[in-house]
C-alpha cells in the first residue's frame, strides 16, 4: 500500500510543526489514562496538547499547563502539555457524571476552534459515550463525526478505518444490515467514492489514488446469479467515475480482496456495509486501527475503540490505537502542508 511521505526525522531549519490537539473524551472512560500513556511513549517526538481537566488524569502524571498550543512542543519533553478545561465534577471510572457531559462537548468545540484558527495541526479525539452525553446534556448528534461535521459546516463526510496495511471506507455505517440494500443508492456510493478519492489525495499525499470497491453480494453477485445490486447500482457508479478519470477496481468479491497480495493493488477499499469493512481491518490489525474522518476542513483521527468503562481507571487500557491515531494525524497534517 503506498502511504504518505513520512515527515523528515530531523526538523532541521524548518519552522517547528504545530502540535496536534487531543480531546479528553468521556472522563469516566479510558480517554485520560491512554492520553497519559501516549505522552509517556511519544514525549516531544510527537507533541500534542491535551484538552481537559488535569484532575481527571491518572495520579502522578507529569502535567504542564499551557495557555496556547504553540507552547506544547517545548514542554512535551518533560510533561504532558495540558490546555486546562475545568469540569464541574471529578471522574468516577465507569460511571459518567451527568454534570460533566456539557464540558465533554465543549472540549470538542474548543478543539475544533483551535483547528480552524490554525493553532493546531489537527484533531485527535478521545472516546465519548453517546448515551452519557444524550442524558447529561441533550447531545442530539448520532456521533462524534456528525458533530464535527456540523461544527465545521460540512454536509457530508466519510469514515475511514486505517491501519498500516489497509484502509477501508464503509458506504453505510450504523444501520441494520437489512436496510443496507435500500440505503445503498448510486448517490450515496458516488459521494463516498469521491470523498475517499479526495481524502487520499489531500490527507495521504497519494496523487493518483487506486480505490477498490467491494460488491454487496457473495462473489460480487457472480454476474447477477446472486443479487443484482452490483449490476444496477455499483457498476454504473464505477463507470461514471472512471469516465472522470478515477482509478477504480470492482465490484470485487469481498472475500478475496483483503489478503496481502490483493491489498497491494489499491490504496483504499470502499465497502458496502459496516462489517464488510470492519471484519478485515480487525482481523489484520486488532489494536492498531485508526478512525479517520475524510471531508472535514481539518485533519481528524481517533482511536478505533470506545470508552471501555469496564476497565477504566485500572491502568490496563491499551494506548496502541490512540498512539496510532496520533501518528496518523501527524502524517495527514504533513501531507496537507506539503500539498
Amino acid at each position, binding site marked *: 500500500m503506498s502511504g504518505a511521505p513520512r515527515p523528515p526525522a530531523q526538523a532541521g531549519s524548518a519552522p517547528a510543526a504545530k502540535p496536534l490537539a487531543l480531546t479528553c473524551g468521556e472522563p469516566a472512560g479510558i480517554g485520560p489514562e491512554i492520553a497519559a500513556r501516549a505522552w509517556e511513549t511519544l514525549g516531544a517526538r510527537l507533541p500534542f496538547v491535551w484538552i481537559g481537566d488535569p484532575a481527571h488524569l491518572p495520579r502522578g502524571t507529569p502535567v504542564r499547563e499551557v495557555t496556547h498550543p504553540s507552547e506544547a512542543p517545548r514542554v512535551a519533553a518533560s510533561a504532558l502539555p495540558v490546555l486546562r478545561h475545568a469540569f464541574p465534577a471529578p471522574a468516577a471510572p465507569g460511571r459518567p457524571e451527568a454534570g460533566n457531559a456539557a464540558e465533554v462537548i465543549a472540549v470538542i468545540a474548543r478543539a475544533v476552534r483551535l483547528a480552524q484558527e490554525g493553532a493546531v495541526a489537527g484533531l485527535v479525539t478521545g472516546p465519548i459515550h453517546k448515551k452519557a452525553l444524550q442524558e447529561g446534556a441533550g447531545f442530539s448528534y448520532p456521533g462524534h463525526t456528525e458533530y464535527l461535521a456540523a461544527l465545521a459546516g460540512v454536509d457530508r463526510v466519510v469514515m475511514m478505518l486505517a491501519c498500516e496495511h489497509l484502509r477501508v471506507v464503509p458506504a453505510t*455505517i*450504523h*444501520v*441494520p*444490515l*437489512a*436496510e*443496507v*440494500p435500500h440505503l445503498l443508492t448510486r448517490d450515496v456510493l458516488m459521494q463516498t467514492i469521491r470523498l475517499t478519492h479526495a481524502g487520499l489525495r489531500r490527507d495521504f499525499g497519494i496523487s493518483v489514488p487506486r480505490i477498490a470497491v467491494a460488491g*454487496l*453480494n*457473495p*462473489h460480487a*453477485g*457472480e454476474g447477477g*446469479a*446472486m*443479487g*443484482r*445490486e452490483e449490476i444496477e447500482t455499483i457498476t454504473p457508479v464505477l463507470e461514471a467515475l472512471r469516465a472522470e478519470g478515477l482509478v477504480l477496481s470492482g465490484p470485487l468479491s*469481498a*472475500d*478475496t480482496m*483483503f*489478503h496481502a497480495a490483493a491489498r497491494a493493488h489499491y490504496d483504499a477499499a470502499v465497502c458496502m*456495509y*459496516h*462489517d*464488510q469493512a*470492519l*471484519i*478485515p*481491518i*480487525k*482481523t*489484520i490489525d*486488532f489494536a492498531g486501527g485508526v478512525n479517520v474522518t475524510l471531508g472535514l476542513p481539518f485533519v481528524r483521527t481517533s482511536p478505533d475503540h470506545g470508552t471501555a468503562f469496564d476497565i477504566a481507571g485500572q491502568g490496563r487500557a491499551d494506548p496502541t490505537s490512540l498512539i496510532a491515531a496520533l501518528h496518523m494525524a501527524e502524517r495527514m497534517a504533513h501531507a496537507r502542508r506539503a500539498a
Partner: protein
Amino acid sequence: MTDDRPILALIPGDPTGIGPELTARILAEGKLADVARFVVVGDRRVLERGARFAGVTLEIAEVASPAAARFDGPVQLVDLGNTDPDALPLGEADAEAGRLTGETLARAIEFALAGDVEAITFAPLNKRALYDGGWRFPDEHKMFAHLLGHAGQFSEMNVLDGLWMTRVTSHVALREALDQITEARIVDALHLADRTMKGAGIDAPRIAVAALNPHGGEGGLFGREEIDIIAPAVERARAEGIDCRGPFPSDTVYLKAFRGEVDSVLAMYHDQGQIATKVRGFMKGVTITAGLDTVFTTPAHGTAYDIVGQGTADTGATEAAIRLSARLAARRRAEALEPQGM
C-alpha cells in the same frame, strides 16, 4: 491382518486447473498411503498429463470399479475415458471442462452410493465452469446433495488448524440471505456443526455465533435480529446440549477462534465468514460438505489457472483434505461397528 485404511475416491478436479498435477504428485510421493487406500476416478489422459506437469511418473493400473481395486501396487484408476484434456483450454474456466468435471464427480458418487468407496476427495473445481457446463447449482455442495437424493440439512464447512467455520446461509444474494436467517435454521446449523466436529474427533466442540448487525445490533439500535432470532436460537441450542455462545459482533468474533477460545464460528452469511477466514489463510485449509451420507472434502483454494502446467502448485491443502476425509471416514466406520445400545 486386515487393512483398515478407509477407501477413498480421489478426483483430479477440473482438467483445465491445477487439480490433475496436484493429484499426480500426491500419488507419486505416496506419503499419504498410511492414511487411506486410493482409487482415482477420472480420465487416464488427464492423470497422465497431470503427472507430466508435476514432473513425476505414475504406474497406473486400470480397474472397472473401486470394488475391483488392489491396493498393494500401482495407482488404481477407474478410467472413465470421458475427458481429452488437450481438447480443452488450459488455464481457463471452460463450460465443457465443467460439464466433464461434474460427470466425473457424479460417477464417483455412484461408487459411494454402492458402498465401494467411503469418502470422496476432489482436487479444485471451478463453480462457474460447473454451472456453465449444465450443472445448475450455485455450488458443488448442492449438487452433491441432489445426486445423493439427500433431503435433510447440509452445509459447507471450512477447516484450518483445528478451527471449523460454518454459516447459516451461503451462495445467495444478501437480500435473500437475510430472509433465510431464522431461529430454526440457526439451531439446525449449530447441531450440524456440533455433529460434524464430533465426527472428526473433537469431543466437546465450542461454537461462537456471529451477530448479524453492526456492533451486534447495539441493543436493538441497529437491528433486532440478535434479540428476536439469534439469541433465542443460541439459548435453545444450549438447552439441547450444544456448547455455543453469542451472538458476538462479527468484526471480532473470528478473533476469538484465532485465539483458541472456541473451535468454531457460525456466521450468518457468506462474506461475514469468508472475509476473516480468507484473510487468515483459510485458502490453505479444507472445505467439507457437512451433513451428507458421503464424506466430501476438497482444498479450499481454487484452480489457480495462472500457474497451471508449471508443476509448482502446492499440494498442502489437498493433502490436508485427504487426511480429513480419511479421519471422518474411519470414525464413521468405527461408529457403525459399535454394538447397539452403547
